[in-house]
């Protein structure tokens, strides 16, 4: 770049701090006397935090069961074999029995986990129509092209909700039964299926289309459910506040996971006798086995987990804090030694001279 500035040189330059590059400036120097205490302080703080994190993570209980049904592993294998190669797979149910020797400290949450399921695949991730999901009537009838091949049904009806994500909605269901005494009868533990989605998703981002004559079903008339669904979207739940696009299961599913192995919140256990947790005793989880995962080499599990202030069980953060904190203190010590050495050396030099 060439430019000329004959005119500029014509008069005396401004004598300001900026033009003379003499702006007042703070010139920090990370000297050892500042950083050494800093290292120790940060190290101690990190170790403290790390311990806190580690123990709260350890205090979180998790109980999981892989019910994929690999042949011979459990009674879900029957369902798995039955469903293999058939689309849609036949309705099948299996169960998981477990015993709690002591109280499972609550509040307890029920998750399902899928693995080798690429919700973060780009083609999969874009296959949705947020305008349609926000209840826009025009978008309901005209889903975006990204939804293809789940854009229009075989009968050329617009699919609602369109796209691969919606089509692959997780459709296994769980119910939890508690046997209070040995040989006693199982009592169903109430599962709260609401409050599992983000508040903003449930209240703002996802909206049902305007009701027609007070009926959601009529609002969806002229659309087809996704090909893999057994029932239309407006029948996802009998609760009018939890059906259609604002069905919380559906909303949770639509927030695509970051990694190929992921958990999604299924239900909260917080009602009646179970608000403090699951009391000891024998339990049974009835599983309606619909969702085929063997086809793509995936696995599915059901998990009970308690939650603390830091979220679910994850030792990583605590350990990382502990490691970094100790590293800090270690380097602090090394620096201290180096520093003292240098000073000694300087003093010796002084003596010599």
């Amino acid at each position, binding site marked *: 770049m060439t430019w000329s500035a004959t005119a500029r040189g014509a008069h005396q330059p401004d004598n300001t701090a900026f033009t003379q590059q003499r702006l007042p400036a703070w010139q920090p120097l990370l000297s050892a006397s500042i950083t050494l205490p800093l290292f120790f302080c940060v190290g101690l703080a990190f170790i403290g935090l790390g311990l806190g994190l580690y123990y709260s993570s350890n205090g979180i209980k998790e109980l999981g069961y892989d019910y994929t049904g690999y042949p011979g592993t459990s009674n879900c294998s029957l369902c798995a074999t039955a469903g293999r190669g058939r689309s849609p797979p036949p309705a099948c149910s299996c169960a998981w029995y477990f015993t709690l020797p002591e109280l499972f400290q609550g509040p307890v949450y029920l998750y399902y986990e899928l693995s080798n399921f690429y919700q973060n695949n780009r083609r999969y991730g874009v296959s949705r129509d947020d305008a349609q999901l926000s209840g826009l009537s025009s978008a309901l009838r005209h889903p975006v092209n990204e939804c293809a091949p789940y854009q229009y049904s075989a009968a050329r009806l617009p699919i609602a909700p369109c796209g691969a994500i919606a089509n*692959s909605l997780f459709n296994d269901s769980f119910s939890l039964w508690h046997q209070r005494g040995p040989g006693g009868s199982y009592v169903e533990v109430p599962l709260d299926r609401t409050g599992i989605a983000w508040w903003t998703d449930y209240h703002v981002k996802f909206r049902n289309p305007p009701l027609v004559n007070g009926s959601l079903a009529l609002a969806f008339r002229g659309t087809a459910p996704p090909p893999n669904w057994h029932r239309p979207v407006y029948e996802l739940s009998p609760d009018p506040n939890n059906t259609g696009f604002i069905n919380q299961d559906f909303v949770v599913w639509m927030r695509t996971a970051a990694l190929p192995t992921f958990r999604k919140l299924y239900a909260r256990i917080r009602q009646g006798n179970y608000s403090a947790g699951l009391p000891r005793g024998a339990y049974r989880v009835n599983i309606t086995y619909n969702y085929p995962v063997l086809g793509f080499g995936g696995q599915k599990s059901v998990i009970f987990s308690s939650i603390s202030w830091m979220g679910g069980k994850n030792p990583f953060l605590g350990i990382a804090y502990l490691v970094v904190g100790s590293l800090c203190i270690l380097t602090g010590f090394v620096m201290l030694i180096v520093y003292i050495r240098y000073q000694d050396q300087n003093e010796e030099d002084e003596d010599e001279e």
Partner: protein
Amino acid sequence: METKMALNYQGKSQKRSAVEKSINAFLIVYLFILLTKAAVCTTLKYVWQSNPNNDEPWYNQKTQKERETLKVLKMFTDFLSFMVLFNFIIPVSMYVTVEMQKFLGSFFISWDKDFYDEEIHEGALVNTSDLNEELGQVDYVFTDKTGTLTENSMEFIECCIDGHKYRGAAQEAEGLSETDGPLTYFDKADKNREELFLRALCLCHTVETKTNDVVDAATESTELTYISSSPDEIALVKGAKKYGFTFVGNQNGQMKVENQRKEIEVYELLHTLNFDSVRRRMSVIVKNQAGDIILFCKGADSAVFPRVQNHEIELTKAHVERNAMDGYRTLCVAFKEIAPDDYERINRQLIEAKMALQDREEKMERVFDDIETNMNLIGATAVEDRLQDQAAETIEALHAAGLKVWVLTGDKMETAKSTCYACRLFQTNTELLELTTKTIEESERKEDRLHELLIEYRKKLLHDFPKSTRSLKKAWTEHQEYGLIIDGSTLSLILNSSQDSGSHNYKSIFLQICMKCTAVLCCRMAPLQKAQIVRMVKNLKGSPITLSIGDGANDVSMILESHVGIGIKGKEGRQAARNSDYSVPKFKHLKKLLLAHGHLYYVRIAHLVQYFFYKNLCFILPQFLYQFFCGFSQQPLYDAAYLTMYNICFTSLPILAYSLLEQHINIDTLTSDPRLYMKISGNAMLQLGPFLYWTFLAAFEGTVFFFGTYFLFQTSSLEENAKVYGNWTFGTIVFTVLVFTVTLKLALDTRFWTWINHFVIWGSLAFYVFFSFFWGGIIWPFLKQQRMYFVFAQMLSSVSTWLAIILLIFISLFPEILLIVLKNVKRRSARVHHLISSSA
């Protein structure tokens, strides 16, 4: 096209700085990384997809069209998609920032009041902003002498008439120009000779007068101003005035001279035999009132002595040589009376030659040659060209900074040599090696003698400097210093004897000698020869950076040839200043320009370049790693808005402010300690070492960002209400850590925190947070997907995320902090050492 200007003109070529060349090298490396990344991802994608479960699981089926696309075509588009996904690794925005930095940065040079000169009321001028950083990389300085090292304001110091020395006392001369008054005569020459000499000074020149009438004044006081192309002539005319002979003017060929008795003498100017650099003399032929025709000639001693009667020479010659040793510019004056008959002939010849259509120059030269013979030497003049203010200090500082200073001048050797001593280019203990016509002698076996000398000098130097050419700069301070003097004719002998097979050999030996000398003086250089020398040095091994500084039109070719050309706004017009890259009023300004401005600009831009590559690698590496976890599906990790704004808004201003304001060392310290300049010589901050350091730092940080977040996500939930985050939260966490880390990394590097730095660094971070809230706070009607809706706010509602972000930033910066502290401990102890040793 045959003017001196045109003949000496060289095409102007685009100058590019060493930094730009480094940038290009880095770009190639990064381009290679980009291609590798894309190729690796494409390959792995197809390896991964070879399992049909992965390629098309039931939950994610392809459209008919996608299935039917040719596989090769798909692979190609996949490759291109990966290129698009990773293209941010090539810092396109860097070019914009670099240009802005250079453009804005160059203002600081023209704003610097230290470069402002009270006399000419001008400061420095920046003609190009491309080369700011090159000022910090200079290895060789080529300087003109007259007008650059010296003032080019000539002052008549003394003269000698028939071997008698006359030295004037300048102050008294003005008022009392009476008969014998103001002059200090050491011993007198014949009065007639004196007057003849002074008349010669008054007549033999091409000076014109300009009268400035003072209109208001009642008296007719007029003030004479002399105008000439050469300051020497003015000095001579003014000198003559001091001795009582005043040149009043030239009207219609009538030259008027006011003599010591205040009488006006009128001479008819018959012919002017103009000055040229080959003859190195000029003459006039005048006719006085009495009708006598006289030729006056003045010129360089070498041009005049052979043309005068021999017996007169000795005394004057000694005088001239002494003067030259003192650094004065000397001229000899001679005259010759021409008989009317002879004049007829001469007149005819001259007119004939002037009218000639072919070979006019040669003919005129021949005629001139004929005329200017058998003259009588009257005397010699000595004119001082004073050294510029602080020229010596500047040269010393440049030497201390490890620069090699070469003086290239058209002056004669003795004059130039004494100037070099005066400005401390040569110290008293410098051993001088001379390669001049004098040492080679006018023998027929010139070349053999030259060869001998070259070999001898080389031996001497090689013996003195052991093979460690690397520690050359150190060696300077310890070993005997050598200086080389060479003149134009010898140089052309070395460079141009092309028919000789050994000429190439000469050149390389000569260069070896040059490289070992701290200072080189080239005298009697033609303008093009100056450029030739610069070119020769420029093409040396390791291609050193050259800087030329000069003031006159004769320096233009060298200014254009060198990497950086600096013009002095001198008295010989603006030719040099216009053709230069930078121009300053005085030679002394070179010190601050190189040591302070050059150093800072280099550090700033080098850091800028490294930082840009670093921050883009940090940015893209997590995105690359993410491909391994999303089935190589080109899923972007960050939202499109973040991808676009990262370089434009979130991280651009802090580095721009840094690259304009940073002073890692104070300007005053830089100027006063020239040795600091050596630290950055040889493009030190953009070598492989620092580049690898930054690249590995970036790779380390990128890995920390990604895997830190990856392990963070190995849990059911990060919130205490058990809700689950998705992929956009993952990306946003990585991105937040990224923005904070690269900005804080710059904050750690900043040594000079002005309010602008504070504003821009903290402002950028605040803007990022603000923007993220804003971007996620609204359902944007123009967006197809509302994927960022409330992601940022929801992310911040988790304590774990906060802790993870802080931890990851800390881990990323930890090596950097450690390094800085170690450096400071080292520096501190070094300083303590220094203090102790200096106090002891």
